[in-house]
C-alpha cells in the first residue's frame, strides 16, 4: 500500500466517520485510529522486517479496500487515544555502502531535526559503483540516522527514523 492509497483510505474513513480501522494483507498490516471525528488520524504502518517488498496494489483493488472496511471495520465507541508515538523507518532497498553526503567532506544530505519531504534524498547507498539515491517516502522530521557514514548496509536495513508529519 502506497502513500496515495493510504491517504485515500484515510479520506474514506473520515467520510464514513470510522474511528478505528485495521487491515492485514500479506506482510502488511495497517491500523488507523482516529481520536475525534474530523481530527487528524493516528497512523500505524507495520511492515515486518526484513522488509518484504510490498506489492503495489493494483488500482482495481481500491473497491476491495472499501469492501473489507465495510465488512471488517466496525465503528467502535470512541475511546481516548492510547497509542504511543510511532516512527517511520526508511530502509535500504539494496546491499551496499552507506554515505550520508553527496561527496566525501561535503555536508550530509540531512541531519536529526531536519524537516523532510516525500522524494527528498536522504543518503546514497553504493553497490558495485552504482550510486543509489535513497529518497524519503514520508514527509516529516528526521529523528535519527541509524547507521554510520561508510558502513556496510544489508538489504532492508533501517537507515533513518522519521516522525511523520500529522
Amino acid at each position, binding site marked *: 500500500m502506497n502513500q496515495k492509497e493510504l491517504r485515500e483510505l484515510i479520506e474514506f474513513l473520515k467520510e464514513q466517520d470510522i474511528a478505528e480501522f485495521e487491515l492485514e494483507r500479506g506482510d502488511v498490516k495497517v491500523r488507523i485510529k482516529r481520536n475525534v471525528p474530523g481530527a487528524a488520524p493516528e497512523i500505524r504502518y507495520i511492515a515486518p522486517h526484513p522488509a518484504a517488498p510490498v506489492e503495489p496494489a493494483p488500482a482495481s483493488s481500491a473497491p476491495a479496500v472499501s469492501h473489507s472496511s465495510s465488512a471488517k471495520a466496525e465503528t467502535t465507541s470512541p475511546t481516548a487515544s492510547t497509542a504511543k508515538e510511532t516512527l517511520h523507518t526508511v530502509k535500504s532497498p*539494496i*546491499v551496499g555502502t552507506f554515505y550520508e553526503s*553527496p561527496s566525501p567532506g561535503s555536508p550530509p544530505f540531512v541531519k536529526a531535526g531536519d524537516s523532510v519531504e516525500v522524494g527528498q534524498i536522504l543518503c546514497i547507498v553504493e553497490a*558495485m559503483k*552504482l550510486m543509489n539515491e535513497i529518497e524519503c517516502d514520508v514527509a516529516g522530521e528526521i529523528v535519527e540516522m541509524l547507521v554510520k557514514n561508510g558502513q556496510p548496509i544489508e538489504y532492508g536495513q533501517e537507515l533513518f527514523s522519521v516522525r511523520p508529519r500529522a
Partner: protein
Amino acid sequence: MSRRAATNRPAQQTDARLGQIVRVLSNYSTMVISGAKLAAEIGATRAEVWRLVQQLRHYGVSIEGRPATGYRLRSIPDLLLPEIVAPLIRGTIFSHFIHHYYRIGSTNTTALEAAAAGAPEGSVFLAEQQTSGRGRGSHSWNSQRSSGIYCSVILRPAMPPSEALVFSLAAGLAVQAAIQSFRVPVDLKWPNDLLIGGRKVCGILTEMAAEATRVRHIVIGIGINVNQITFPPELQNSAISLQLATGKEWSRVELCAALLKSLDQEYRTLLERPNARESVLLRFQERSSYVKGRKIYVEENGGYHGTTYGLDDRGFLRVHTPDGIRLVLSGSIRAV
C-alpha cells in the same frame, strides 16, 4: 566531482542546424553546395548558414568555401553529432533521442536531471568536452575536448533496485565488447573499469533513482580515453588512451556507435532472457583477470588485503582474507 550531481548549470545543447549542415554536406560529399541551397535545406538564412559554418570550423570540421562560392565538406568530421551517430545505431533503443553538447559540466548530471524531468528510456547524452566530468566519490574524470567519448544513457528497467546492480557489470562487458570489436584486448577490473596494461582506458559511473520496489531510472555514464596523446602528470601512470595503446588515431564516431550497439544488446538480453543475469556473471568471470586468484587491496571498510575468490550470485566480489571470505560491496579495489 561527487557521488551525486550538485547543482548543474544548464548546458547549451548543440544547435541542431550544425548537425543538419554536416548531414547535407555529407550527402553531397563530392559536390559544392550553394549557400542558398544549404539555407533552404535547413530552414535558415544564408547569413545564418555562414555563421554556422564558421562555428563548425571552430570545432574542427573541415569545410571548404565561402558564401559566394558555396561549401564542400573535406572529410566526415569525427564529431558525435546525432546526425552522424544515429544512422549507425538504427534499431537500437538509443537511436531516437541523442543529445549533443560541445561543452557540458557532466553528461551524467545532465542526464540525471533530464531523467528526473521525464526524459524517455534510451536518451543519450554525448559531449565533446566535460568541464566537471565525475567519477566515483570525489574523483573527477579528465575530459579533454574531442579526444574522448563522454556518454551517458538513461534506462528505465521495470525491476526492483536490488536486481538492477547487474547493470553495473553488464555496462563494463558492453564497453569491453565494443573496444574488442576493433581487435584490441582490454581487461575488466571489477566492477567495471577497463584497463590496458594495467592503466585505465574507460571508467563507468552508474547512478540510480528508485523507489523501494521499483527502479525509476538508471543513468550509466561512460568515459573512454580515445585519442588523448598526453595526460596530466598525476594521471600519467594510471591512465591510457586507445591511441596511446595502439599507435593509431581512432574514429570516436565508430567506437561510440559500437558502444551503443553493444550496450543495447546487453540491456535487451537482460530484460528478455530468463538466464541473462547468470550469463553476465559467467562472462564477467571469464573476461576479467581480477575475479579469481588476484591479490588486491580493498579500500572500503577501513581497507584490507586479500585474494579474489570469484563472484557471489549477486555479482559481489568475494575476497579470501586471513579472517575468512569477505565481500566487496561498493567497488574500489586495486591490484597489489
